């Protein structure tokens, strides 16, 4: 009798709690829990057949279908390569200025932030194919016209590394940050002193500057650059929302705090 009353009283509480969840996944789990408690209620009211069906459909199958549905829509999928200080893996967790910004932005939208590490050169291709929502990881160049670049959040510059034997080149204004593969592999390449010709942004260059670069010519390209995020072809709305969020962060000084915290 008491158990029945407790379960019945729990039902509206669970329903209300799951109704006011901001994260969609939490709301779906709340609905599954609701079904489970409802099944227990049925059981206590001597309706085991209905209880079995409610548990099988409500708690298991429908929950899974919802999770499938929000798997893509409930996440803010960001593709990026690592940039120390901006977005880097440390002990299994992402840390950096861009991570803090994206984390707050995803929470604002009620989405789960999901960051996938991809080669820097592939970020724009993946966005163009619509396989991710945002590109990040120290994007300092203008993307193709169909992609939407957000406002800047940090100034930077480009640095070009060339084998010492190469002839000096002109300071190209349209130079892009370019290196083969993942940033984490790049340090290996440089340690092995392979002759490479690459262009890096300031954050990446500072991260590798501990390596002995005496074999390379290091030129700082004079054109000023800034870091920004890039949204996919049909995500102009997302770009505008992120711009508004960045404006807000700059307005209340949070952005400066983040920069001080991650780039001492």
């Amino acid at each position, binding site marked *: 009798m008491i158990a029945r009353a407790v379960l019945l009283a729990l039902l509206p509480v669970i329903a209300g709690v799951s109704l006011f969840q901001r994260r969609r996944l939490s709301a779906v789990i709340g609905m599954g829990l609701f079904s489970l408690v409802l099944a227990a209620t049925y059981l206590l009211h001597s309706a085991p*057949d209905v209880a*079995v069906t409610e548990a*099988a*459909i409500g708690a298991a*199958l429908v929950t*899974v*279908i919802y999770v499938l*549905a929000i*798997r893509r829509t409930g996440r803010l999928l960001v593709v990026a390569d690592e940039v120390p200080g901006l977005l880097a893996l440390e002990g299994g967790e992402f840390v950096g200025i861009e991570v803090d910004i994206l984390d707050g932005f995803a929470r604002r939208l009620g989405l789960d932030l999901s960051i996938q590490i991809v080669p820097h050169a592939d970020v724009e291709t993946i966005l163009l194919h619509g*396989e991710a929502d945002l590109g990040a990881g120290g994007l300092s160049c203008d993307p193709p016209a169909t992609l939407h670049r957000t406002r800047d959040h940090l100034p930077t510059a480009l640095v070009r590394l060339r084998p010492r034997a190469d002839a000096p080149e002109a300071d190209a204004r349209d130079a892009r940050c370019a290196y083969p593969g993942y940033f984490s592999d790049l340090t290996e390449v440089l340690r092995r002193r392979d002759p490479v010709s690459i262009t890096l942004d300031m954050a990446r260059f500072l991260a590798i500057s501990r390596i002995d670069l005496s074999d390379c010519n290091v030129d700082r390209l004079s054109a000023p650059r800034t870091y920004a995020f890039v949204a996919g072809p049909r995500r102009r709305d997302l770009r505008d929302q992120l711009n508004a969020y960045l404006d807000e962060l700059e307005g209340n000084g949070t952005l400066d705090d983040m920069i001080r915290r991650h780039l001492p």
Partner: protein
Amino acid sequence: MKTLVRNILAVVLSLAVFGIVVFDLAIPEEPARVDDSALLAATTGAPNLVSAVYLGARLYDTLFEVLVFTVAVIGVRFYLLRRSSEAPSASIPESHVLQASAQILYPLILILGVYLTCFGHLSPGGGFSGGVVAASGLLLCVMSIGADTVYRRLSGAGIERLEWALPMLIVAACVLPLAFARPALSNLLPVGRAGHLFGSPSILLLNVLIGLKVLIGSWMVLYAFIRHRGEI
């Protein structure tokens, strides 16, 4: 040839459903009583009165419930699986913890589904809930070995043909008593000893057919969702 067979099957199915309605009205019969539990258990041989009602006295309702479910599955398949031939979305690999635990759990869940289906007339359960539980087991199977592998294996086992055959078989089980000069929707097989697994063979048969139908239908719906929303 294939279209001809399909059209003939469709006509037979419609005629059979139509026949149930017409003949059931043509053969005068005492309306099945659902308020006398002792009588109900005796005529169906099923101690679980819920099964005795929805697969015995009120089989008519259940038959159309199955047909509604069939139509729903056809709708999902038509709109999701046939809609586009674009490449399925890139798969997101599952975490190892989930993979390993799913691998342990799915045979148990599948067996629970089979149990619920086969013992539906004796204890709580039945074809509908048993089929859904087994479909959840398949879902765990998908988590451990991947949706496309499961799909290939099940298609190899001729699951699609079975899916189309099952509604026909269920309707046939409802219509066939007419061939023995009994009203449609009555017991197809003779009642045995009450309380035993084969005590009410017609309800057992219907439960197994409905369980298979629900399992395959749910799997088709889930697979359609997986294909268009990414890997589970």
